[in-house]
């Protein structure tokens, strides 16, 4: 995945978890906890975006004489 700052969904979830745990543990100065909170919101937005941006498509690669010829809908090619 080539996202800004190399953020991946997995990393974002991990960081979010750390933030929530740190906040729940308490003891952070208010200012720092506000910073963490807004970072957390950012990560949630990012994750929701990632979860939403996939689409459903089932395709199949068509080869002829070992050459890749086309990619077509699986149902069109093999569906009954």
């Amino acid at each position, binding site marked *: 995945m080539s996202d800004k700052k190399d953020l991946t*969904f*997995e990393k974002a*979830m991990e960081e*979010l*978890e750390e*933030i*929530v745990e740190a*906040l*729940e543990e308490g003891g952070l100065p*208010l200012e720092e*906890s*506000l910073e963490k*909170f807004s970072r*957390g*919101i950012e990560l*949630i937005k990012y*994750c*929701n975006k*990632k*979860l*939403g*941006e*996939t*689409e*459903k*498509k*089932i*395709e*199949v*690669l068509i*080869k002829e004489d070992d050459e*890749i010829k086309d*990619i077509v809908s*699986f149902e069109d*090619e*093999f569906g009954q």
Partner: protein
Amino acid sequence: MEHNIDSIYSVSQISSYIEALFSTDKVLQDLWVKGEVSNLYKANSGHMYFTIKDENAQLKTVMFRHKSHKLDFELEDGMEIAVHGYINIYKVRGEYQLYADEIIPEGRGSLYEAFEKLKKELKEEGLFEEDKKQKIPLIPKKIGIVTSPTGAAIRDMISVVDRRFEHVSILIIPSLVQGDKASGQLVEGIEYLNKRDDIDLIIVSRGGGSIEDLWPFNEEKVARAIYASQIPVISGVGHETDFTIADFVADLRAPTPSAAAELAIANREEIENQLENLSRRLLNNQKSRLKSAKDRLGSIANRRIFKKPEEMFIDKMQRLDEFSRELKWNMEKLLNKNKERFKILNSKMETLSPLKTIKRGYSITYDQEGNPITDIGEVQKGQAVKTNLKNGIFTSSVQKIEEDGGLDE
């Protein structure tokens, strides 16, 4: 010949004794026997009874239904086989027999050997190690599936995806999944998917079959292609009981094709719940954090010092006044006390002054050095002394010294 009647056993007793002997023997309890099948009888119950024999001996064998129905080939008289199981006695007939749990037709033995050999080699090389396994992405966007486009496996997988999940794309790379050409096509498929930049996850899969059918998934080049894949690979080959080399080297082994599809996307729901849970916790935490900060601020702002800040200074000012008053008073007291003392000292000085005594008509006598003579021991006969009167001084010499007759007693 004498017989002790107590040492005669019943047939059941001695049979049980023999049974116990057999069942504690390590060789008899876990062995492979090879030979030719004869007198095969497949009962309606599903149990199979047959004899395995070689030129010189035969061995009665039984395979019960729960084992025999797992055989992926038809057992026939005359087949050369290897049988695994244990030997014990069948007391009803007074016969010993082999209780079979696995049968391998001749020829397969070499496949098993090849399987074990490759498995051992690749294991030693480190291809199966857990720390070499890649993590399966939490939310794959596009999954590449290398399998037969016409088999049951791909149908199963698609129906899982249809049922569970609408946010994933699938690209199927058609490949033969049995026969000599299959392994080459599987490798090509894996390599092709690695060249694309939109694939998050690969599944290599086929449905159930005999060990010969599954064989391409036991070939070294397939194992190496899976190992070399930069994209995580899930294997879903055959049934739950089938283990292939591909399963060992894959990043995740699924027991069946549909399980592979489940594993690839099952995370999604869990992830969504987890994200929701984290969001809620984050918001709740922040809410309560802000509330407690606000409460605290409120209680601080309510304190007297913020409500009537002048009180703090009033106190201090009052105290300051008190101090200065005290200081003044103390100074005066000290001064007065000293004044009084001076007066007393002054009058004392006046009364004690020798001049005053002289004025009253007394005199003081000094020696030649000018020290007043106050003790008779300080004078000698003939010594010159000076006497000070109120209106003059005269010098005389000592004529006579009398120690007695002074004022002291």
